[in-house]
Protein backbone atom coordinates (compact mmCIF):
# COMPACT_ATOMS: atom_id res chain seq x y z
CA UNK A 1 0.00 0.00 0.00
CA UNK A 2 1.65 3.22 -1.04
CA UNK A 3 0.36 6.71 -1.27
CA UNK A 4 1.57 9.19 -3.86
CA UNK A 5 4.10 11.51 -2.44
CA UNK A 6 5.25 14.49 -4.40
CA UNK A 7 8.53 16.24 -3.60
CA UNK A 8 9.77 14.88 -0.31
CA UNK A 9 9.05 17.24 2.60
CA UNK A 10 11.76 17.73 5.23
CA UNK A 11 12.00 14.54 7.26
CA UNK A 12 10.82 14.84 10.82
CA UNK A 13 13.27 15.50 13.62
CA UNK A 14 13.20 12.94 16.44
CA UNK A 15 11.19 15.35 18.56
CA UNK A 16 8.63 15.87 15.86
CA UNK A 17 8.59 12.21 15.08
CA UNK A 18 7.57 11.37 18.57
CA UNK A 19 6.82 13.69 21.42
CA UNK A 20 7.70 10.87 23.79
CA UNK A 21 11.45 10.99 23.21
CA UNK A 22 11.52 14.71 23.75
CA UNK A 23 9.79 14.58 27.09
CA UNK A 24 12.21 15.15 29.89
CA UNK A 25 11.23 14.04 33.36
CA UNK A 26 9.31 17.00 34.60
CA UNK A 27 9.06 18.44 38.07
CA UNK A 28 5.98 17.60 40.06
CA UNK A 29 3.24 20.01 39.03
CA UNK A 30 2.56 22.46 41.80
CA UNK A 31 -0.81 21.86 43.41
CA UNK A 32 -2.37 24.98 44.77
CA UNK A 33 -2.15 24.78 48.53
CA UNK A 34 -5.64 24.85 49.97
CA UNK A 35 -5.96 27.95 52.17
CA UNK A 36 -7.48 25.80 54.86
CA UNK A 37 -4.20 24.11 55.58
CA UNK A 38 -2.16 27.08 56.77
CA UNK A 39 -5.06 28.42 58.81
CA UNK A 40 -5.71 25.09 60.47
CA UNK A 41 -2.02 24.49 60.93
CA UNK A 42 -1.57 27.87 62.57
CA UNK A 43 -4.33 27.26 65.04
CA UNK A 44 -3.00 23.85 65.93
CA UNK A 45 0.51 25.21 66.23
CA UNK A 46 -0.71 27.96 68.50
CA UNK A 47 -2.37 25.50 70.82
CA UNK A 48 0.67 23.23 70.81
CA UNK A 49 2.84 26.20 71.60
CA UNK A 50 0.66 27.16 74.54
CA UNK A 51 0.93 23.63 75.85
CA UNK A 52 4.70 23.49 75.50
CA UNK A 53 5.24 26.91 77.00
CA UNK A 54 3.08 25.91 79.94
CA UNK A 55 5.87 23.58 81.06
CA UNK A 56 8.21 26.50 81.47
CA UNK A 57 6.05 29.47 82.21
CA UNK A 58 2.49 30.38 82.98
CA UNK A 59 1.12 33.80 83.98
CA UNK A 60 0.54 32.50 87.47
CA UNK A 61 1.52 29.48 89.49
CA UNK A 62 -1.19 26.89 88.75
CA UNK A 63 -1.63 26.18 92.43
CA UNK A 64 -1.91 29.83 93.38
CA UNK A 65 -5.30 30.75 94.66
CA UNK A 66 -6.18 34.41 94.63
CA UNK A 67 -8.66 34.46 97.54
CA UNK A 68 -9.48 38.08 97.18
CA UNK A 69 -10.20 37.97 93.49
CA UNK A 70 -12.45 35.05 92.72
CA UNK A 71 -14.54 35.11 89.54
CA UNK A 72 -13.11 38.38 88.41
CA UNK A 73 -13.05 39.58 84.84
CA UNK A 74 -10.06 39.97 82.53
CA UNK A 75 -7.33 42.38 83.51
CA UNK A 76 -8.09 42.45 87.22
CA UNK A 77 -5.07 42.03 89.44
CA UNK A 78 -2.87 40.88 86.60
CA UNK A 79 -5.09 38.02 85.48
CA UNK A 80 -5.21 38.31 81.66
CA UNK A 81 -8.46 36.40 81.38
CA UNK A 82 -9.73 36.65 84.91
CA UNK A 83 -10.11 33.94 87.53
CA UNK A 84 -12.51 31.08 88.13
CA UNK A 85 -14.76 30.63 91.12
CA UNK A 86 -11.93 29.37 93.29
CA UNK A 87 -9.63 32.22 92.36
CA UNK A 88 -7.37 30.29 90.02
CA UNK A 89 -6.02 32.14 87.01
CA UNK A 90 -7.96 31.15 83.90
CA UNK A 91 -5.21 31.84 81.40
CA UNK A 92 -2.88 29.55 83.29
CA UNK A 93 -5.44 26.77 83.45
CA UNK A 94 -6.17 27.13 79.76
CA UNK A 95 -2.53 26.65 78.90
CA UNK A 96 -2.18 23.61 81.10
CA UNK A 97 -5.51 22.38 79.84
CA UNK A 98 -4.05 22.49 76.37
CA UNK A 99 -1.60 19.83 77.48
CA UNK A 100 -4.45 17.55 78.46
CA UNK A 101 -6.36 18.19 75.27
CA UNK A 102 -3.38 17.38 73.08
CA UNK A 103 -2.23 14.47 75.19
CA UNK A 104 -5.62 12.81 75.20
CA UNK A 105 -5.88 13.37 71.48
CA UNK A 106 -2.53 11.81 70.74
CA UNK A 107 -3.15 8.70 72.80
CA UNK A 108 -6.73 8.23 71.70
CA UNK A 109 -5.95 8.71 68.03
CA UNK A 110 -2.87 6.58 68.47
CA UNK A 111 -4.93 3.70 69.80
CA UNK A 112 -7.45 4.06 67.03
CA UNK A 113 -4.79 4.25 64.34
CA UNK A 114 -2.71 1.34 65.57
CA UNK A 115 -5.68 -0.95 65.85
CA UNK A 116 -7.88 0.42 63.10
CA UNK A 117 -5.32 0.60 60.32
CA UNK A 118 -4.24 -3.05 60.26
CA UNK A 119 -7.86 -4.09 60.60
CA UNK A 120 -8.84 -1.90 57.68
CA UNK A 121 -6.05 -3.25 55.52
CA UNK A 122 -6.90 -6.83 56.36
CA UNK A 123 -10.57 -6.15 55.62
CA UNK A 124 -9.57 -4.75 52.26
CA UNK A 125 -7.25 -7.56 51.28
CA UNK A 126 -8.89 -10.74 52.44
CA UNK A 127 -11.60 -12.90 51.00
CA UNK A 128 -15.21 -12.03 51.39
CA UNK A 129 -15.99 -13.98 54.56
CA UNK A 130 -13.22 -12.54 56.67
CA UNK A 131 -13.68 -9.09 55.29
CA UNK A 132 -17.40 -9.11 56.01
CA UNK A 133 -16.88 -10.39 59.54
CA UNK A 134 -14.49 -7.59 60.33
CA UNK A 135 -16.83 -4.99 58.94
CA UNK A 136 -19.80 -6.28 60.88
CA UNK A 137 -17.81 -6.30 64.10
CA UNK A 138 -16.79 -2.80 63.18
CA UNK A 139 -20.41 -1.79 62.83
CA UNK A 140 -21.14 -3.08 66.30
CA UNK A 141 -18.32 -1.02 67.71
CA UNK A 142 -19.52 1.96 65.75
CA UNK A 143 -22.88 1.72 67.41
CA UNK A 144 -21.28 2.22 70.81
CA UNK A 145 -21.04 5.86 71.76
CA UNK A 146 -17.72 6.87 73.26
CA UNK A 147 -19.60 8.39 76.11
CA UNK A 148 -21.27 5.16 77.09
CA UNK A 149 -17.99 3.32 76.89
CA UNK A 150 -16.31 5.93 79.06
CA UNK A 151 -19.03 5.76 81.66
CA UNK A 152 -18.81 1.98 81.78
CA UNK A 153 -15.06 2.13 82.15
CA UNK A 154 -15.31 4.88 84.73
CA UNK A 155 -17.80 2.91 86.73
CA UNK A 156 -15.48 -0.10 86.73
CA UNK A 157 -12.09 1.49 87.04
CA UNK A 158 -12.83 4.97 88.29
CA UNK A 159 -12.92 8.08 86.15
CA UNK A 160 -9.58 9.39 84.99
CA UNK A 161 -7.77 10.65 81.99
CA UNK A 162 -6.71 7.14 81.14
CA UNK A 163 -10.21 5.74 80.96
CA UNK A 164 -11.22 8.73 78.87
CA UNK A 165 -8.39 8.14 76.44
CA UNK A 166 -9.09 4.46 76.09
CA UNK A 167 -12.79 5.01 75.66
CA UNK A 168 -12.33 7.69 73.03
CA UNK A 169 -9.64 5.69 71.30
CA UNK A 170 -11.73 2.58 71.04
CA UNK A 171 -14.71 4.59 69.85
CA UNK A 172 -12.58 6.09 67.08
CA UNK A 173 -11.47 2.75 65.69
CA UNK A 174 -14.45 2.16 63.36
CA UNK A 175 -13.82 5.40 61.48
CA UNK A 176 -10.28 4.32 60.72
CA UNK A 177 -11.28 0.82 59.72
CA UNK A 178 -13.80 2.09 57.20
CA UNK A 179 -11.61 4.72 55.65
CA UNK A 180 -8.52 2.53 55.46
CA UNK A 181 -10.51 -0.36 54.05
CA UNK A 182 -11.91 1.72 51.23
CA UNK A 183 -8.45 3.04 50.46
CA UNK A 184 -7.07 -0.48 50.51
CA UNK A 185 -9.72 -1.71 48.10
CA UNK A 186 -8.77 1.03 45.70
CA UNK A 187 -5.09 0.19 45.89
CA UNK A 188 -5.77 -3.51 45.48
CA UNK A 189 -7.57 -2.85 42.22
CA UNK A 190 -4.54 -1.20 40.62
CA UNK A 191 -2.24 -2.75 38.08
CA UNK A 192 0.84 -2.11 40.15
CA UNK A 193 -0.42 -4.42 42.86
CA UNK A 194 -1.02 -7.02 40.19
CA UNK A 195 2.51 -6.42 38.99
CA UNK A 196 3.73 -6.93 42.54
CA UNK A 197 1.95 -10.27 42.73
CA UNK A 198 3.45 -11.29 39.43
CA UNK A 199 6.82 -10.19 40.78
CA UNK A 200 6.35 -12.69 43.58
CA UNK A 201 5.47 -10.51 46.55
CA UNK A 202 3.56 -12.08 49.39
CA UNK A 203 0.34 -10.46 50.55
CA UNK A 204 1.97 -9.12 53.69
CA UNK A 205 4.74 -7.60 51.66
CA UNK A 206 2.22 -5.97 49.33
CA UNK A 207 0.34 -4.57 52.34
CA UNK A 208 3.43 -2.98 53.79
CA UNK A 209 5.18 -1.88 50.65
CA UNK A 210 2.27 -0.83 48.45
CA UNK A 211 -0.92 -0.40 50.41
CA UNK A 212 0.38 1.49 53.41
CA UNK A 213 2.24 4.24 51.55
CA UNK A 214 -0.71 4.76 49.26
CA UNK A 215 -3.26 5.10 52.04
CA UNK A 216 -1.03 7.31 54.16
CA UNK A 217 -2.81 10.37 52.82
CA UNK A 218 -6.14 9.02 53.96
CA UNK A 219 -4.59 8.15 57.28
CA UNK A 220 -3.37 11.66 57.94
CA UNK A 221 -6.70 13.15 57.08
CA UNK A 222 -8.58 10.67 59.23
CA UNK A 223 -6.19 11.27 62.10
CA UNK A 224 -6.76 15.02 61.95
CA UNK A 225 -10.50 14.62 62.03
CA UNK A 226 -10.34 12.00 64.75
CA UNK A 227 -8.17 14.35 66.77
CA UNK A 228 -10.77 17.08 66.63
CA UNK A 229 -13.42 14.65 67.74
CA UNK A 230 -11.20 13.36 70.52
CA UNK A 231 -10.71 16.80 71.96
CA UNK A 232 -14.42 17.42 71.87
CA UNK A 233 -15.11 14.06 73.42
CA UNK A 234 -12.64 14.63 76.22
CA UNK A 235 -14.19 17.98 76.96
CA UNK A 236 -17.60 16.39 76.97
CA UNK A 237 -16.53 13.61 79.27
CA UNK A 238 -14.87 15.99 81.69
CA UNK A 239 -17.88 18.24 81.59
CA UNK A 240 -20.04 15.34 82.65
CA UNK A 241 -17.62 14.51 85.36
CA UNK A 242 -16.30 11.29 83.86
CA UNK A 243 -13.05 12.53 82.51
CA UNK A 244 -10.23 14.41 84.11
CA UNK A 245 -10.48 14.55 87.89
CA UNK A 246 -10.38 17.71 89.97
CA UNK A 247 -6.62 17.91 90.17
CA UNK A 248 -5.97 17.94 86.42
CA UNK A 249 -6.85 21.12 84.55
CA UNK A 250 -8.88 20.30 81.51
CA UNK A 251 -11.01 22.53 79.36
CA UNK A 252 -14.03 20.32 79.78
CA UNK A 253 -13.57 20.36 83.52
CA UNK A 254 -13.31 24.12 83.48
CA UNK A 255 -16.61 24.29 81.64
CA UNK A 256 -18.12 21.98 84.20
CA UNK A 257 -16.98 24.09 87.06
CA UNK A 258 -18.21 27.28 85.53
CA UNK A 259 -21.78 26.05 85.26
CA UNK A 260 -22.76 27.50 88.61
CA UNK A 261 -21.36 30.92 87.69
CA UNK A 262 -23.05 31.17 84.33
CA UNK A 263 -25.29 34.06 85.26
CA UNK A 264 -22.89 36.05 87.40
CA UNK A 265 -19.60 35.54 85.59
CA UNK A 266 -20.33 34.15 82.14
CA UNK A 267 -16.81 34.81 80.95
CA UNK A 268 -15.52 31.95 83.05
CA UNK A 269 -17.44 29.65 80.75
CA UNK A 270 -16.58 31.54 77.63
CA UNK A 271 -12.82 31.04 77.75
CA UNK A 272 -12.69 27.26 77.97
CA UNK A 273 -15.56 27.00 75.50
CA UNK A 274 -13.67 29.17 73.06
CA UNK A 275 -10.54 27.11 73.52
CA UNK A 276 -12.40 23.90 72.73
CA UNK A 277 -14.11 25.42 69.71
CA UNK A 278 -10.82 26.78 68.41
CA UNK A 279 -9.03 23.47 68.79
CA UNK A 280 -11.79 21.57 67.02
CA UNK A 281 -11.85 24.17 64.27
CA UNK A 282 -8.12 24.03 63.85
CA UNK A 283 -7.92 20.26 63.50
CA UNK A 284 -10.94 20.09 61.27
CA UNK A 285 -9.57 22.72 58.92
CA UNK A 286 -6.26 20.94 58.85
CA UNK A 287 -7.98 17.66 58.07
CA UNK A 288 -10.23 19.14 55.39
CA UNK A 289 -7.38 21.04 53.83
CA UNK A 290 -5.12 18.00 53.77
CA UNK A 291 -7.85 15.91 52.23
CA UNK A 292 -8.42 18.43 49.45
CA UNK A 293 -4.69 18.50 48.95
CA UNK A 294 -4.13 14.77 48.82
CA UNK A 295 -7.31 13.44 47.26
CA UNK A 296 -6.22 12.01 43.91
CA UNK A 297 -9.69 12.18 42.45
CA UNK A 298 -9.61 15.94 42.68
CA UNK A 299 -6.47 16.24 40.58
CA UNK A 300 -6.99 18.03 37.33
CA UNK A 301 -4.57 16.98 34.65
Amino acid at each position, binding site marked *: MSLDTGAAPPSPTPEERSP*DLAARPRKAPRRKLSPLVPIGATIVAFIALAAIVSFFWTPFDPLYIDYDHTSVGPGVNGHPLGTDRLGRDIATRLMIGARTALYVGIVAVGIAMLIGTPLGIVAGMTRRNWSESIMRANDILLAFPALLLAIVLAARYGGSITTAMIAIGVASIPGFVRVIRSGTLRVMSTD*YVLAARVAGRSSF*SIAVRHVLP*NVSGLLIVQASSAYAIAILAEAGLSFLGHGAPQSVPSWGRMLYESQSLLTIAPLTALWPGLAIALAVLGFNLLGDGLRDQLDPTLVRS
Partner: protein
Amino acid sequence: MTADRSVDAAAEPVVVLDHVTREFRRRGAPWQAGSAVVALDDVSLQIPRGSKFGVVGESGSGKTTLVRLVAALDQPTSGRVVVDGVDISRLQERQLRPLRRRLQLVFQDPMGSLDPRMRIRDVVAEPLRSNFGRKVPDSEPFPTEDWRARVSEVLAAVGLDDSALDRYPHQFSGGQRQRISIARAIAPRPGILLADEAVSALDVSTRGQILDLLAELATTEDFTLLFVSHDLSVIRHVCDRVAVLRRGILVESGLIADVYDRPQHPYTAELLAAVPTLAGGVERARGRAGDPEATI
Protein backbone atom coordinates in the same frame (compact mmCIF):
# COMPACT_ATOMS: atom_id res chain seq x y z
CA MET B 1 -12.31 -25.56 16.76
CA THR B 2 -8.84 -24.47 15.94
CA ALA B 3 -7.61 -24.05 12.43
CA ASP B 4 -3.92 -23.90 13.06
CA ARG B 5 -2.09 -23.72 9.84
CA SER B 6 1.40 -23.11 11.17
CA VAL B 7 3.85 -25.05 9.12
CA ASP B 8 6.42 -25.85 11.72
CA ALA B 9 5.61 -26.62 15.32
CA ALA B 10 8.84 -28.39 16.04
CA ALA B 11 9.86 -26.14 18.91
CA GLU B 12 8.35 -27.38 22.15
CA PRO B 13 5.51 -25.06 23.13
CA VAL B 14 6.32 -22.82 26.07
CA VAL B 15 2.68 -22.25 26.97
CA VAL B 16 -0.09 -24.77 26.44
CA LEU B 17 -3.79 -24.29 27.00
CA ASP B 18 -5.51 -27.65 26.95
CA HIS B 19 -9.31 -27.47 26.64
CA VAL B 20 -9.41 -24.56 29.03
CA THR B 21 -12.77 -23.27 30.16
CA ARG B 22 -13.30 -20.46 32.62
CA GLU B 23 -16.75 -19.88 33.95
CA PHE B 24 -17.82 -17.15 36.31
CA ARG B 25 -20.83 -18.06 38.34
CA ARG B 26 -23.01 -15.46 39.88
CA ARG B 27 -24.93 -16.56 42.88
CA GLY B 28 -28.50 -15.41 42.64
CA ALA B 29 -30.88 -15.15 45.55
CA PRO B 30 -31.04 -18.30 47.70
CA TRP B 31 -33.98 -19.65 45.74
CA GLN B 32 -32.51 -18.94 42.32
CA ALA B 33 -30.07 -21.03 40.35
CA GLY B 34 -27.76 -18.16 39.54
CA SER B 35 -26.18 -17.53 36.17
CA ALA B 36 -22.86 -18.31 34.59
CA VAL B 37 -20.73 -16.25 32.26
CA VAL B 38 -18.41 -18.31 30.15
CA ALA B 39 -15.33 -16.20 29.59
CA LEU B 40 -13.35 -18.92 27.84
CA ASP B 41 -14.97 -21.93 26.24
CA ASP B 42 -12.87 -25.00 25.57
CA VAL B 43 -9.85 -23.12 24.30
CA SER B 44 -6.80 -25.07 23.23
CA LEU B 45 -3.69 -23.22 22.21
CA GLN B 46 0.02 -23.85 21.88
CA ILE B 47 2.58 -21.12 21.93
CA PRO B 48 5.92 -22.12 20.42
CA ARG B 49 9.05 -21.12 22.29
CA GLY B 50 10.73 -18.07 20.87
CA SER B 51 7.72 -16.92 18.92
CA LYS B 52 6.01 -13.58 19.03
CA PHE B 53 2.46 -14.71 19.49
CA GLY B 54 -0.48 -12.38 19.19
CA VAL B 55 -3.95 -12.89 20.58
CA VAL B 56 -6.62 -10.72 19.01
CA GLY B 57 -9.99 -10.13 20.56
CA GLU B 58 -12.51 -7.38 21.04
CA SER B 59 -14.22 -6.66 24.32
CA GLY B 60 -15.94 -9.73 25.71
CA SER B 61 -13.66 -12.04 23.78
CA GLY B 62 -12.03 -13.49 26.88
CA LYS B 63 -8.58 -12.19 26.19
CA THR B 64 -8.25 -10.62 29.63
CA THR B 65 -9.22 -13.91 31.21
CA LEU B 66 -6.65 -15.64 29.04
CA VAL B 67 -3.97 -13.27 30.29
CA ARG B 68 -4.88 -13.91 33.90
CA LEU B 69 -4.89 -17.66 33.45
CA VAL B 70 -1.52 -17.77 31.79
CA ALA B 71 -0.06 -15.38 34.37
CA ALA B 72 -1.34 -17.62 37.17
CA LEU B 73 -3.56 -14.89 38.55
CA ASP B 74 -6.61 -17.03 38.07
CA GLN B 75 -7.48 -20.71 37.73
CA PRO B 76 -9.45 -22.42 34.98
CA THR B 77 -12.79 -24.04 35.74
CA SER B 78 -11.69 -27.00 33.69
CA GLY B 79 -8.77 -27.89 31.49
CA ARG B 80 -5.06 -27.38 32.01
CA VAL B 81 -2.73 -24.43 31.72
CA VAL B 82 0.87 -25.49 31.30
CA VAL B 83 3.60 -22.88 31.49
CA ASP B 84 7.19 -23.82 30.85
CA GLY B 85 6.40 -27.46 31.39
CA VAL B 86 4.62 -26.93 34.70
CA ASP B 87 0.89 -27.45 35.10
CA ILE B 88 -0.12 -24.31 36.96
CA SER B 89 -3.85 -24.92 36.83
CA ARG B 90 -4.30 -25.97 40.42
CA LEU B 91 -1.25 -24.71 42.22
CA GLN B 92 -1.40 -22.69 45.42
CA GLU B 93 0.15 -19.26 45.73
CA ARG B 94 2.95 -20.65 47.84
CA GLN B 95 3.90 -23.09 45.11
CA LEU B 96 3.53 -20.50 42.40
CA ARG B 97 5.74 -17.88 43.96
CA PRO B 98 9.10 -19.37 43.05
CA LEU B 99 7.88 -19.86 39.51
CA ARG B 100 6.67 -16.34 39.00
CA ARG B 101 9.98 -15.06 37.74
CA ARG B 102 9.54 -17.09 34.63
CA LEU B 103 6.57 -15.11 33.38
CA GLN B 104 6.20 -11.36 33.60
CA LEU B 105 3.54 -8.91 32.56
CA VAL B 106 3.37 -5.52 30.92
CA PHE B 107 0.04 -3.85 31.52
CA GLN B 108 -2.11 -1.53 29.47
CA ASP B 109 -2.25 1.53 31.64
CA PRO B 110 1.08 3.30 32.10
CA MET B 111 -0.44 5.41 34.86
CA GLY B 112 -1.74 2.56 36.97
CA SER B 113 0.97 -0.02 36.53
CA LEU B 114 3.62 1.81 38.54
CA ASP B 115 3.25 2.54 42.24
CA PRO B 116 3.19 6.34 42.44
CA ARG B 117 4.96 6.23 45.79
CA MET B 118 7.94 4.20 44.70
CA ARG B 119 11.11 5.37 43.10
CA ILE B 120 11.93 3.91 39.71
CA ARG B 121 14.88 2.02 41.16
CA ASP B 122 12.55 0.13 43.49
CA VAL B 123 9.86 -0.28 40.88
CA VAL B 124 12.17 -1.98 38.42
CA ALA B 125 13.87 -4.04 41.10
CA GLU B 126 10.64 -5.40 42.52
CA PRO B 127 10.72 -8.79 40.80
CA LEU B 128 14.33 -9.15 41.86
CA ARG B 129 13.92 -8.42 45.51
CA SER B 130 10.53 -9.67 46.58
CA ASN B 131 9.77 -10.62 50.11
CA PHE B 132 12.30 -8.41 51.81
CA GLY B 133 15.27 -9.94 50.13
CA ARG B 134 14.65 -13.31 51.58
CA LYS B 135 16.10 -15.72 49.13
CA VAL B 136 13.24 -17.19 47.17
CA PRO B 137 14.05 -20.76 46.25
CA ASP B 138 15.50 -20.11 42.84
CA SER B 139 14.56 -22.26 39.98
CA GLU B 140 16.21 -19.69 37.76
CA PRO B 141 19.90 -19.04 38.25
CA PHE B 142 19.67 -15.35 39.12
CA PRO B 143 22.27 -13.94 41.48
CA THR B 144 20.05 -11.98 43.87
CA GLU B 145 22.92 -9.86 45.11
CA ASP B 146 23.46 -8.08 41.78
CA TRP B 147 20.10 -6.42 41.48
CA ARG B 148 21.42 -2.88 41.22
CA ALA B 149 23.53 -3.71 38.21
CA ARG B 150 20.65 -5.50 36.59
CA VAL B 151 18.34 -2.53 37.15
CA SER B 152 20.74 -0.19 35.36
CA GLU B 153 21.18 -2.74 32.66
CA VAL B 154 17.48 -3.10 31.86
CA LEU B 155 16.85 0.62 32.07
CA ALA B 156 19.53 1.13 29.46
CA ALA B 157 18.01 -1.62 27.36
CA VAL B 158 14.72 0.27 27.21
CA GLY B 159 16.34 3.57 26.39
CA LEU B 160 16.47 5.26 29.78
CA ASP B 161 19.52 6.09 31.86
CA ASP B 162 20.46 6.06 35.52
CA SER B 163 19.07 9.55 36.08
CA ALA B 164 15.70 7.88 36.17
CA LEU B 165 16.57 5.77 39.21
CA ASP B 166 15.72 8.30 41.89
CA ARG B 167 12.68 9.74 40.19
CA TYR B 168 9.02 8.98 40.64
CA PRO B 169 6.59 7.72 38.00
CA HIS B 170 4.65 10.96 37.69
CA GLN B 171 7.74 12.66 36.39
CA PHE B 172 7.66 10.60 33.22
CA SER B 173 5.47 10.59 30.14
CA GLY B 174 3.17 7.70 29.25
CA GLY B 175 5.61 6.21 26.79
CA GLN B 176 8.47 6.42 29.24
CA ARG B 177 6.40 4.81 31.95
CA GLN B 178 5.64 1.96 29.66
CA ARG B 179 9.35 1.55 29.05
CA ILE B 180 9.86 1.38 32.80
CA SER B 181 7.16 -1.27 32.97
CA ILE B 182 8.98 -3.24 30.33
CA ALA B 183 12.26 -2.84 32.18
CA ARG B 184 10.62 -4.20 35.30
CA ALA B 185 9.22 -7.11 33.38
CA ILE B 186 12.47 -8.20 31.76
CA ALA B 187 14.61 -7.68 34.85
CA PRO B 188 14.26 -11.21 36.25
CA ARG B 189 15.08 -12.68 32.81
CA PRO B 190 11.69 -14.26 32.26
CA GLY B 191 11.25 -16.85 29.58
CA ILE B 192 7.86 -15.42 28.75
CA LEU B 193 6.69 -11.84 28.48
CA LEU B 194 2.97 -11.22 28.42
CA ALA B 195 1.96 -7.84 27.04
CA ASP B 196 -1.69 -7.02 27.75
CA GLU B 197 -2.79 -4.18 25.46
CA ALA B 198 0.63 -2.72 26.13
CA VAL B 199 0.33 0.14 23.65
CA SER B 200 -3.42 0.79 23.60
CA ALA B 201 -3.27 3.62 26.09
CA LEU B 202 -0.38 5.29 24.33
CA ASP B 203 -0.38 8.00 21.76
CA VAL B 204 -0.30 6.69 18.24
CA SER B 205 3.09 8.32 17.76
CA THR B 206 4.63 6.42 20.65
CA ARG B 207 3.17 3.04 19.80
CA GLY B 208 5.58 2.22 17.03
CA GLN B 209 8.58 2.80 19.24
CA ILE B 210 7.34 0.64 22.08
CA LEU B 211 6.39 -2.16 19.70
CA ASP B 212 9.79 -2.08 18.06
CA LEU B 213 11.38 -2.11 21.48
CA LEU B 214 9.43 -5.21 22.48
CA ALA B 215 10.35 -6.99 19.28
CA GLU B 216 14.00 -6.12 19.70
CA LEU B 217 14.08 -7.18 23.35
CA ALA B 218 12.42 -10.47 22.53
CA THR B 219 15.53 -11.31 20.61
CA THR B 220 18.23 -9.78 22.81
CA GLU B 221 16.71 -10.93 26.09
CA ASP B 222 15.55 -14.19 24.60
CA PHE B 223 11.96 -14.51 25.68
CA THR B 224 8.73 -15.63 24.07
CA LEU B 225 6.38 -12.70 23.56
CA LEU B 226 2.67 -13.16 24.08
CA PHE B 227 0.92 -10.01 22.88
CA VAL B 228 -2.75 -9.58 23.57
CA SER B 229 -4.63 -6.76 21.88
CA HIS B 230 -7.82 -5.71 20.17
CA ASP B 231 -5.78 -3.89 17.56
CA LEU B 232 -5.05 -6.01 14.50
CA SER B 233 -2.51 -3.70 13.00
CA VAL B 234 -0.52 -3.49 16.20
CA ILE B 235 -0.30 -7.28 16.31
CA ARG B 236 0.69 -7.47 12.72
CA HIS B 237 3.51 -5.05 13.39
CA VAL B 238 5.18 -7.14 16.03
CA CYS B 239 3.98 -10.76 15.91
CA ASP B 240 4.72 -13.76 13.74
CA ARG B 241 1.72 -15.81 14.80
CA VAL B 242 -1.78 -14.91 15.84
CA ALA B 243 -4.86 -16.43 17.42
CA VAL B 244 -8.30 -14.85 17.15
CA LEU B 245 -10.75 -14.97 20.05
CA ARG B 246 -14.42 -14.26 19.86
CA ARG B 247 -16.74 -14.49 22.84
CA GLY B 248 -14.50 -16.97 24.59
CA ILE B 249 -14.01 -19.20 21.58
CA LEU B 250 -10.83 -19.60 19.62
CA VAL B 251 -11.90 -18.90 16.11
CA GLU B 252 -8.71 -19.09 14.11
CA SER B 253 -4.97 -19.24 14.60
CA GLY B 254 -1.82 -19.56 12.54
CA LEU B 255 0.99 -17.58 11.00
CA ILE B 256 0.35 -13.87 10.63
CA ALA B 257 0.69 -13.78 6.91
CA ASP B 258 -1.72 -16.67 6.49
CA VAL B 259 -4.39 -15.36 8.80
CA TYR B 260 -4.24 -11.77 7.63
CA ASP B 261 -4.05 -12.46 3.91
CA ARG B 262 -6.31 -15.49 3.71
CA PRO B 263 -8.60 -15.47 6.73
CA GLN B 264 -10.63 -18.62 6.99
CA HIS B 265 -13.23 -17.58 9.49
CA PRO B 266 -15.82 -14.90 8.63
CA TYR B 267 -15.23 -13.14 11.94
CA THR B 268 -11.55 -12.72 11.17
CA ALA B 269 -12.44 -11.33 7.78
CA GLU B 270 -14.87 -8.93 9.39
CA LEU B 271 -12.22 -7.73 11.84
CA LEU B 272 -9.74 -7.17 9.08
CA ALA B 273 -12.22 -5.28 6.95
CA ALA B 274 -13.20 -2.97 9.77
CA VAL B 275 -9.80 -1.40 10.25
CA PRO B 276 -9.77 2.11 8.80
CA THR B 277 -7.01 2.53 6.23
CA LEU B 278 -5.36 5.63 4.85
CA ALA B 279 -5.80 4.52 1.28
CA GLY B 280 -9.44 3.71 1.88
CA GLY B 281 -9.96 7.06 3.48
CA VAL B 282 -8.38 8.92 0.60
CA GLU B 283 -10.67 7.08 -1.80
CA ARG B 284 -13.75 7.97 0.17
CA ALA B 285 -12.67 11.59 0.37
CA ARG B 286 -12.14 11.69 -3.36
CA GLY B 287 -15.54 10.17 -3.88
CA ARG B 288 -17.20 12.75 -1.69
CA ALA B 289 -15.46 15.58 -3.49
CA GLY B 290 -16.64 14.24 -6.83
CA ASP B 291 -13.10 13.76 -8.01
CA PRO B 292 -12.91 12.03 -11.38
CA GLU B 293 -9.90 10.07 -10.10
CA ALA B 294 -11.95 8.38 -7.43
CA THR B 295 -12.41 4.68 -7.86
CA ILE B 296 -15.36 4.46 -5.46
